[in-house]
């Protein structure tokens, strides 16, 4: 006894602080969650009627007010209307300029710009690809879309690049902007679309501004990344020779960040073209509208052809704006003859403008107003035929696997419906408590609070059942995407051949606007919830694969070598070294997959997935602004919860193996993102 006492004493003092902590960590959240459930039980199984933020009614009222007072209130007459007019003016004039040039002039202009930036190759590609839009019979609509896109892109760059430079130079600016951009990134487009519609009405200005808001973040981010990426030694060299701040920027930082800035330009273009169809939801005419009409009529051919034209236009613009100009070798003799240089500097632009005007004049004389109809090919009929064929042959009766229809039934019966039923039939407070608990376990009480509050917010928006429907689809899509993407990503990281095969596919997938996926999906699955899930999966897989591969590739050589030197098999090396060290990247892949799947919810609604997306589409197309806002806000709340939770997973493992910076993370999300 006497001897035992001190020993237990030691044991107690040694262990009690730890058990104490554990006790706190488990019991406090436990009590809170039990309390939530108890309160919920008292309130009732359904979201109580008094828990209603009256968002729909209030937004509808506000909208009514703007409709009534739009002509008289100073905010409209002095601020919004002039902005709207300026945008309309620019797009109209750009369009009439393009029309004055006529199609031969536009092609020559494309060639000239391409030649200037990327040499013959870029010129040729630009011309050929852009002609594709004409061949598809969409020249005129392409010009409408182009004029909208170009105005958006120019404004987005004019805003984004200076902001990016500022963020690159000042830590404080970067911090502020990072907060805003991070939030913007998980915000679906509709969150800004709806207020824009309220303010500017349906039409080109709202569409242009939505595109700008959507495309500015990557420009800021990439520019800032580029400026920050300039080696400290280079700026130090500048300072050591007495550069002033502006001299440093102009002579050192910007030239060295040139590639990054060009990449920013490219991203902005891709982002802008990625949402052409969305822009049409709020009144942008042109190709996006054609796609939308096709989709709404479930006419695959009519959606496909303009979709293809959008892709062509995007590729053409991309090629002529970001071509790597071949290095000009200025021989000493040319450089030293001032006359020659002068000639180069002034003759070339003169020649270019001259030839452009000449072509335009000739085109006018020849009355080449429209792209020659003899050249156009109607692809919608063959596409429809192909769709029918595919539908007939793949929907049913494929040996063993059965066909897409049975696949579809399988997914619905075994996954979608059970998941939805589970979420919808569970008492709402249990879901709130569960989400809060997951948040708590992932990132502490603050995150738990945010998650719980967000879900209560969804209840208050009165869209609980729709949200659960959407959530079930998103979760199923995420699980399927990860099951495909992570193994493929690991495989690609371990085999050069696999990566060589996957890489171009992933590249193409990234520049494709999201809705392009819908077309083949409709081919195979008709409309409904499954095609929505399939579209999300197709959309989310590329970044998933890419991030997994990237994460594994970034694992430093030394530990792997060490493992091999101890006789680890490739499998052991993967499981014991690479995967643990790539946890953060894997979590990032999960995070991105979720965001991508969520971002396509509205698109999915266009092909019958229902849920919150439908609510939003309805709000936009039928001017049910209140309803649309409620749906959009609920998607945002879902996005915030899922994003924050998975980000917390990532940053936890980060402490062990932090490799990627914020910028890389957001950067790797890449273009073609339609959120």
């Amino acid at each position, binding site marked *: 006894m006497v001897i035992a006492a001190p020993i237990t004493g030691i044991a107690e003092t040694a262990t009690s602080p730890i058990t104490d902590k554990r006790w706190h960590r488990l019991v406090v959240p436990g009590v809170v969650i039990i309390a939530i459930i108890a309160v919920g039980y008292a309130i009732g199984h359904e979201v109580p009627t008094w828990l209603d933020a009256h968002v729909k009614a209030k937004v509808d009222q506000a909208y009514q007010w703007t409709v009534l007072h739009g002509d008289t209130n100073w905010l409209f007459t002095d601020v919004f209307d002039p902005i709207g007019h300026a945008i309309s003016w620019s797009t109209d004039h750009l369009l009439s300029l393009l029309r004055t040039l006529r199609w031969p002039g536009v092609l020559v202009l494309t060639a000239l710009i391409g030649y200037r930036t990327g040499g013959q190759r870029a010129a040729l590609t630009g011309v050929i690809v852009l002609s594709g839009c004409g061949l598809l019979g969409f020249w005129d609509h392409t010009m409408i879309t182009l004029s909208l896109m170009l105005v958006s892109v120019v404004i987005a760059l004019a805003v984004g690049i200076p902001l990016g430079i500022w963020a690159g130079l000042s830590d404080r600016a970067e911090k502020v902007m990072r907060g805003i951009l991070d939030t913007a990134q998980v915000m679906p487009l509709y969150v800004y679309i709806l207020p824009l519609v309220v303010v500017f009405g349906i039409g080109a200005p709202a569409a242009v501004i939505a595109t700008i808001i959507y495309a500015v973040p990557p420009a800021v981010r990439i520019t800032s990344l580029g400026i920050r990426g300039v080696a400290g*030694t280079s700026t*130090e*060299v500048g*300072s*050591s*020779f007495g550069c002033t701040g502006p001299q440093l920027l102009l*002579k050192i930082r910007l030239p060295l960040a040139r590639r990054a800035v060009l990449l920013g330009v490219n991203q902005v273009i891709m982002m802008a073209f990625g949402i052409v169809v969305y822009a049409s939801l709020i009144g942008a005419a042109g190709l996006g509208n054609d796609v939308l009409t096709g989709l709404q009529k479930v006419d695959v051919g009519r959606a496909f052809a303009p979709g293809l034209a959008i892709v062509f236009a995007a590729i053409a613009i991309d090629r002529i704006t970001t071509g790597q100009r071949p290095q000009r070798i200025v021989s000493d003799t040319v*450089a030293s003859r001032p006359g020659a240089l002068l000639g180069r500097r002034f003759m070339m632009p003169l020649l270019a403008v001259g030839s452009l005007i000449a072509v335009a004049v000739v085109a006018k004389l020849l009355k080449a107003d429209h792209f020659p109809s003899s050249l156009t090919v109607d692809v919608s009929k063959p596409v429809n035929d192909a769709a029918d064929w595919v539908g007939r042959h793949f929907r049913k009766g494929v040996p063993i696997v059965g066909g897409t229809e049975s696949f579809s039934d399988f997914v619905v019966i075994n996954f979608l419906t059970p998941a939805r039923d589970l979420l919808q039939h569970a008492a709402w407070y249990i879901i709130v408590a569960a989400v809060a608990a997951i948040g708590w376990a992932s990132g502490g009480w603050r995150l738990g609070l945010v998650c719980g509050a967000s879900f209560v917010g969804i209840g208050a928006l009165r869209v609980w059942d729709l949200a659960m429907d959407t959530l079930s689809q998103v979760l199923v899509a995420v699980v399927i995407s990860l099951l495909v993407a992570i193994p493929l990503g690991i495989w690609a990281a371990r085999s050069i051949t696999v990566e060589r095969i996957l890489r171009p596919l992933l590249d193409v997938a990234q520049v494709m606007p999201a809705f392009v996926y819908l077309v083949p999906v409709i081919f195979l699955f008709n409309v409904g919830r499954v095609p929505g899930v399939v579209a999300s999966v197709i959309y989310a897989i590329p970044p998933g694969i890419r991030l997994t591969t990237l994460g594994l590739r970034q694992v430093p050589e030394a530990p792997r070598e060490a493992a091999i030197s101890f006789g680890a098999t490739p499998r052991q090396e993967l499981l014991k070294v690479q995967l643990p060290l790539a946890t953060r990247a894997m979590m990032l892949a999960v995070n991105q997959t979720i965001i991508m799947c969520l971002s396509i919810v509205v698109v999915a609604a266009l092909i019958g997935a229902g849920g919150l997306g439908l609510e939003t589409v309805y709000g936009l197309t039928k001017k049910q602004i209140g309803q649309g806002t409620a749906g959009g806000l609920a998607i945002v709340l879902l996005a915030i919860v899922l994003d924050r939770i998975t980000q917390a997973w990532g940053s936890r493992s980060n402490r062990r193996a932090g490799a990627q910076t914020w910028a890389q993370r957001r950067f790797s999300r890449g273009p073609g993102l339609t959120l």
Partner: protein
Amino acid sequence: MAEASISVRGLWKVYGPRAGRIVGSPDADLPRAMLEAKTGCVVAMRDINLDVAPGEVFVVMGLSGSGKSTLVRCLTRLIEPTAGTVMIGDTDVTAANRDELLDVRRHRVSMVFQHFGLLPHRTLIDNIAFGLEVQKMAKDKRRAKAEQILELVGLAGLGQRKPDQLSGGMQQRVGLARALATDPEIMLFDEPFSALDPLIRRDMQDEIVRLRREVKKTMVFITHDLSEALRLGDRIAIMRDGRFVQVGTPEEVVGAPADDYVANFVRDVPRSHVVAVDSVMAPPASGGSSGTVPLGTKIRDVVPYVAASELPVRVVDASGTVVGSIDRVAVLSVIAGEDLAPVAGG
């Protein structure tokens, strides 16, 4: 005009929150880890005092992390010192306003960097002309000047190349040319040759020796290579934990290391390579001699004479007057490392 070209008094650099309070406080003497734990600060350089005479080559040596780069960058405030003053000629750099500081950087001091610091987007000519461009010199004028300097460093005709088309040695020649182009009084070198292989390094050192002879610049030269320091330096400072532990001529440093740290540094240097006849010679002896050497000759170079003959060697000054003599015993005692005569003042 002040006598010294560079004059540094009580210079400190402390990284961390509220760095100023560390300067001169008892905390500054804490070991690095303790200080960092206690205050979150790192003392990179402490209480440096230094005068470099015009035309002198002042070498700073020390292990990695001892604060050499910090020191050299504080001289033109590329790193802002925490306390102390730096005078370049009669300009107080630490008190200078923006324009004065730019003037110092543009016209009076230039720097050669460890990893060359060439700007990859510019041709060699434009790299060399960079300093002139920043001064807003007209384009053809600065090009012409850069062309001249390119020739001086032996790269004539390569002006239109980009830096990545050159080898490391050639790149550092461009770095050197760029620093020369602004025709500064003072040149700062931060381990300029440590990224080069030994043969090219030797070449570049010769280049510095030649420059020093021909253009008479004041130089501050950072290196962690002792033989480089001994070859180039008029004086050598040994740095440790941000302070100078010894400043002296190569002979002093090798001959009379101030502490174990320095002794460790110079342990492997044969003294005969460093010690000159001046410090060990006896008064002129009458009688025959085995040869004549000028003042400043290293003992190593006297060995052949005393090996060939038992007669002492005569030492003459610049005008040819015999000022001393040195015999076999003196040479051997230097080589054996004993009984070094009182070193000559530096």
